[in-house]
């Protein structure tokens, strides 16, 4: 077959291609619904909006250097959305916890995730810093980096005063799963 002269587009060639196309389209028609079935279904009840968070202490009573840790509501399962971020964090990324911090007279709400690789930072009670347990990054209470490997400050959460002084409304998302 290889040494024969180049084929012309004969009736037989046409029929061969026709069968190939027919079989291929049959297979595609059979497989397409399966591929569609495999696509992730949209989570039911997923909804962006402010999440109400109760704090153990009124935000008006916070002294300079005070830190309150809070978690995202779990009923329904929710997460906060970061307002900004660098490194591993980006605006719109999910955070499952955060801190209300009063530092140098300013009230900040920070996401819990380290900007290096996203581990949850913890308050260092004695040094009054946020320390990351994974690779030892340290942050000032205002979120700025004190020590690497993190290169970017902690992300902020968008928030507003809630219905009373013990409540804040933080931008987030009800996950729907």
């Amino acid at each position, binding site marked *: *077959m290889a040494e024969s002269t*180049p*084929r012309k*587009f004969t009736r*037989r*060639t046409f029929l*061969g*291609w026709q*069968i*190939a196309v027919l079989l291929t389209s049959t297979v595609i028609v059979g497989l397409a*619904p*399966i591929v*569609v*079935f*495999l*696509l992730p*279904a*949209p989570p*039911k009840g997923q909804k962006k909006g402010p999440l109400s968070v109760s704090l153990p202490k009124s935000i008006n009573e916070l002294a300079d250097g005070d830190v309150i840790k809070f978690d995202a509501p779990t009923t329904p399962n929710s997460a906060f959305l970061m307002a900004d971020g660098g490194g591993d964090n980006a605006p719109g990324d999910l955070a499952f916890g955060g801190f209300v911090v009063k530092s140098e007279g300013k009230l900040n709400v920070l996401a819990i995730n380290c900007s290096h690789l996203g581990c949850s930072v913890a308050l260092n009670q004695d040094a009054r810093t946020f320390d990351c347990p994974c690779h030892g990054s340290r942050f000032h209470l205002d979120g700025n980096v004190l020590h690497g490997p993190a290169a970017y400050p902690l992300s902020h959460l968008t928030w507003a005063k809630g219905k009373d002084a013990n409540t804040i409304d933080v931008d987030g998302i009800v996950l729907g799963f």
Partner: protein
Amino acid sequence: MAIPHPREIQVAVVEWLDERYPFTKAVDEALYQRVPNFANAFYYCFGGMVFILVVLQLLTGILLSLYYVPDAGGNPAAAYSSVNFIQNSVYLGWLIRGVHFWGANLLIIMVLLHMARVYWTGSYRAPRELNWMVGVTMLLLILAFSLTGYLLPWDTKAYFATQVTIKIAGGVPPQQLGAFIRDILQGGSVVGPPTLQRFFTIHVFLLPAVIVLLMYVHFRFIRAHGISEPL
């Protein structure tokens, strides 16, 4: 430039494969069997239809298992919620579950028709008795598939239907044997989460493995005996 005929591509692929294992010979032996004229009647196709339906059941079953959660704990139970999710949220989930459901019903009809044909044409007689026995075993396996699959949606109908069937199985005399069978099936004192777990494992792991093996045996027997002559 010459347009390559699909055949040339096909030949190149087949030649590459044949140099490594005699696939052409194996496929020829499997495919190029003379079909006697008497076997061209439509009722000789019932067995093949059963085979296609079983393949369809395996395929849709694997797809359903991607979303199904065999957990009867909680209210509503995750098992029920996941079936609800397949039916109402997953893209084309209603289609895949529908094919599985109706395929299961059709399968039993086709198995019975196939069995009736084999009986009608006397194909169960010597030397084919063993294949009849394998076939009857597979009929029972398919009924076991139906029984165990019926519980999996974990809705009220499934729950009480299974309670009834387990009660029937538990009625085997003597009383101690019946109680033993009931406890083994139920996995507890009532139909509950352990029952669902057992039925799920039987439906998804045990029965498919056994039926695929027996189908292979069934087909080898047919090849060994050939299609039986009409009466």
